[in-house]
C-alpha cells in the first residue's frame, strides 16, 4: 500500500470515528483526530491544515445541518446575547467554528511533534 493510500485510508477512518464520537458528545474528537493525522503524516505542512479542516468540518457540518433544518439565526442571536455580545449572532458562530478548527489544528500539531520525537511512528508510517 502506498503512503498516500495509507494516509487516505487512515484519514477516512479518522473522519468516521470523529463523526461517531462527535455525535455522542465527544467535543474533543477533532483534537484526537488531529493527533492521528499528525502522527501518520510525514509532512507537518500537510497534516496541520488537514487537522484544522477536520476540526472545521466536524464542528461546522452539524451547524450547516441545523441551519438547513431549523434555521440558526435565533439561536445564534440568543447565544450572542447570553455571552454579552448584543445580538451579533455571527460572533458565537465564528467562535464555534474557531474552537473546532483550533482543536483539529492543535491536535495535528501535537501529532506531528510526537511523530518527530517518536521514531516508532515514523517507521510505522514511512514504509
Amino acid at each position, binding site marked *: 500500500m502506498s503512503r498516500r493510500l495509507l494516509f487516505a485510508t487512515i484519514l477516512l477512518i479518522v473522519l468516521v470515528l470523529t463523526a461517531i464520537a*462527535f*455525535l*455522542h*458528545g465527544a*467535543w*474533543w474528537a477533532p*483534537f484526537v483526530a488531529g493527533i492521528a493525522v499528525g502522527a501518520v503524516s*510525514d*509532512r*507537518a*505542512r500537510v497534516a496541520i491544515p488537514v487537522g484544522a479542516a477536520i476540526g472545521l468540518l466536524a*464542528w*461546522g457540518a*452539524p*451547524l450547516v445541518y*441545523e441551519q438547513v*433544518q*431549523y*434555521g*440558526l439565526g*435565533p*439561536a445564534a*442571536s*440568543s*447565544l*450572542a*446575547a*447570553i*455571552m*454579552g*455580545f*448584543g*445580538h451579533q449572532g455571527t460572533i*458565537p458562530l465564528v*467562535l*464555534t467554528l474557531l*474552537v473546532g478548527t*483550533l*482543536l483539529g489544528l*492543535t*491536535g495535528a*500539531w*501535537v501529532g*506531528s*511533534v510526537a*511523530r*518527530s*520525537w517518536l521514531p516508532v511512528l*515514523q517507521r510505522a508510517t*514511512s514504509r
Partner: protein
Amino acid sequence: MTADPAVEAPIRTDKTQAAQGPAVGRRWIGGFRPSRRAINPVAALVVSAAVLYAALFGAGPLPALGPAFNPVTGAWTMAAAAQVGNETLHLAGLQQPVSVSLESDGTAHIVAQTDHDLFLATGYVHARFRLFQMDLMRRQGEGRLSQVIGKAALDSDRFELQLGLLRTAELEWSQLTSSDPSREALTAYAQGVNDRISEAESRHQLDAMFKLLGYEPAPWTPIDTLIVKGDMTQTLNFTDTPLVIAQLDKSLGADLTSEWFPVLPPNQQSPYDPGPYGAATSGPIEAMSQVSDSVAATAAALYQRLAALPPGLIATGGASNNWAVAGSKSASGGALMAGDPHLHLTLPSIWFQLTMDSPGYHASGVSIPGTPIVLIGHNQHISWSLTDAQNQQTFYYLEHEDAAHPGQYFWKGAWQKYKTVSYDIPVLGGPTEHLAVKLSVHGPVITQRGQTTSVWWAGNLPSQDLDALLRVGQASNWQEFRDALRDWHSPTHNFVYADDQGNIGLISAGYYPLVAAGQPWLPMTGTGEDDVTGTVPYDAIPQVYDPSDGIIWSANQRQVTSDYPYYIGTASNFFDPGYRANEIHRVLSQGTAAGGKLSAADMMALQTDTRDFLASEIVPVLVQTLAGKKLSPSESAARDLLANWDYRMETNSAAATIWSSFWQSYLGETFDPWWKSRAVSIDRQEVNDALGQDLEAWTLGDTANRAFTSPGSGQRTAFDVILKAFHATVGTLTKSLGSAPKTWTWGRVHTRELENLAQISGLSYGPRADRGDANTPLAAGGDPSTHGPSWRMVVDWGTGTFSGIYPGGQSENPASSWYTNRVDTWWSGLYAPMLSADQASAAKATVTWNLRS
C-alpha cells in the same frame, strides 16, 4: 524528501531569518539559544494546552467552549429544541395514554384518564418548556445557587438556609399522609419532571443555560415543589418593615413616626369588607414608643443585611387587582370576574398557561412551573383569582441572652437552648461553606450584629396550601371554595370568586398572627410576653359574599375599616395606599349605578385603565393654588396642560409627566428637610407610599399640618410647598426635556422592561415607552417599570367566555417563537381566548403529543 518536519525546520528558520535580516544583536537568556526542534514541541504543547483549557474550563467570561458550543450536544441544540411538532412520547410511570394539545401560541391542554397521569404529564410539560426556570427557583429557595453561580450568590444562599424554606418544605412533606391527594400529585408531578430530565439528557436537549453553566439538573423531588411555593410566599410577604420603622422611630422620634406611619391609613380608602365585625378575642395594641439605641442599632444592621440581598427576596409592597360583578349587574346576566396579579415581569414569565383535565380535576388558567396545579383560573363552575392581602406575617424578636448562659436564651422564665441546624453550601470555584443556623422558639436567628434577633414568619408554618388549591380547583360553589381555603396559611391572599350561578365572593384567606402584647410593627422582646399566640378566627377574617351592591374588588388595600377589631398590619409598607382600589371601586360603582350593567369589555378596559386616582384628587388643588400666581410662560403652559387633563397616564400625555414630577417634588419639598435634619438613615423613597398617604390627607384636609413647616423653612402651609414644588418641577423638566411643556410626554420618561430571569439583558424585552404608573389599575410603577400585570384574565359566566394573556411566552428557550410571542398582544391591552381542550384540539396549527408509558 525527509519525513521529519524537524529536519525541515532549519531551512525554514534560515528563510525566516533571511527575511528578517541578520540575527545580529538577538539575545537569549543565559546565552542559550533554543533550537527549532525544541521550540516546536514546546509551542505545540503550550498552544494545545491553552486551547484545551479554554475548551474544558472556559476563559474569562466565556464558558467551557468545548461542551458548551459543541454543535451536536451543546447550546446550539436550542435551535432544534425550539421546534415543536406532533410526537408520540414514552414516559415512565404513566398509567394510561395522555393527550397533550399545544395551541399555536403554546397554550397546553392536558387530557388524562387518571389524576395521577394528569399531574405526571403536567410535570413533563412544565419541564419540557421551563426546566431551567424551575431549577433556578428551587436552587434559590434551597440555598444552592452558589453551586452553579459561585460565591456571588453566597449571601442569598446563607439567608435562605437561615430563613428556612427548605426546613419548612421538608416538614410539610413529612406531614403528608400516604393517602393525601396532594402527596400523590406531588409524587406524580416529580415523576413527570424527571421523565423529561432523562429524555432531555439522552437527546442532548437540556436548556442552553445548563450547557453554558456546565451542569445537569438533579432529579426533581416533591420537596422541590414545596420550595417553589415557598419562594412565592417569601417574595410576597417576608418583610423588613419592623426594622424600617424601628430606625424611623429612633431618628424621627416616636411622635412623628406615630403620626406619619400610623396603623390605620390616614387617607380615604375603599375597603371591600365594610363590616359589621365581631368582637375581638385579643387585646388592643399599644401606641408607638421610643426604641432604644441597641434595638435601633440591631435593626439597622439587620436592615442593611436584608437590603443587600438580591431583589425579590424581600416583599416590597404588593400590586395586584381583582374584582367581580354579580350576575344581576352584568350585561350578560352572568357573573363577571377579572384578575391581574402584578409581579416582577420576567422572561420567561412566572406563569405557564394550561388546561388540566382528568376524571377528578378540571382547571384552566395559569400555573407556576414547578407546581402541579392551576393557581389562577376557572373550572366548569367557578373562577378565581388572587391578590396579595398584605397583612403582617413577619415579626422580629430580640432574644435575651447573657454571658453566664452561652448558647441559650431566656424565654418564659427559663433559659432555653438554641437548636442548631448545619448546612454545607457548595460553591462553584471555591471551598464548600459550612453554615450553622440557630433556632429559637420564634424562628431562625438572623442577627448580623448587635442583639441576637430571630424572626417569626408565617411562611415557616407548615401549611398544606397545595391541598387547599387542589380543592379550590375542584370546588363548584362558594361554600366548597371557602372551605377549601380554611387551612390556607401563607402568603395571605385576597381570593376573588365568581360562579356560573351569578354569585360573587371575596375572602382574604391566610394566617393573621395575633401577638399577646407589644408593638408588632417594631422588633419585640423575645422573652415570651410578645409571642404570637394564634390567628384571627377564619370566620372573622375579611370576606364578603354576594354583597348588596353587586361588586367586590381588591387591590392590596386594607380590606377592612377602622372598626375591624384586630391588628393586621400598619398602613406603611404593608397595605397599598389604595389608589388602584379607589379607582376600581369608582369605575365599578359608576358602571352599576342607576341600573347600569357592565360587560367583559368593561372589565378589560378597567384592567388597562391608566387613570391616576391620586392625581384626580391633588391636581385640582394644584391648579387652584396656581390661580392668580405669577408664572413664567412654561409654567403657565404646564398649568394649562394640568387644568385640561383627564388624569390618564398615557404615553402621549405631557400633563402626566408634569403630575408625576410634581408629586415627587412635593414629597421631597415636604419631607427631605426632616430627613436631613433628623439624619434619617432610611431612604425616603422606600417609605414614599406611606408618606404619600399623609401628604394626600393633609393636602385635602389639613393644609396647616406641622410637617409643612419643616426645619429651616419657616412657617409654611401646603399651598406654599405646592407652589415651590411646582416651580421646581417646571424647572427640572425644562432642563431635561426642553422648554415646550406640550412635548414633555409621558412616553419620553416612562418605560417598561420585561427582564430576563437570569438577568441577561440581551434576552430581556425593552425598555419601551409605556403608559400607567404605580397608582393606576394598569400598574407600572418605576422607570423602567419591571413589575406589573403578570397575567390578565377576564371571565364572563353569562356568555361562557374566558380570556387571558400574559407578557412573554410559554418557552424559556430564547430561540423559540414562544419566548416572546404574547408580548405584543399583552402590551396592546388585548386578550387571547382561553379555549377548552376540545376547542384547542380542533383549532388550526395545534400540535399533539401522545404520551404513552
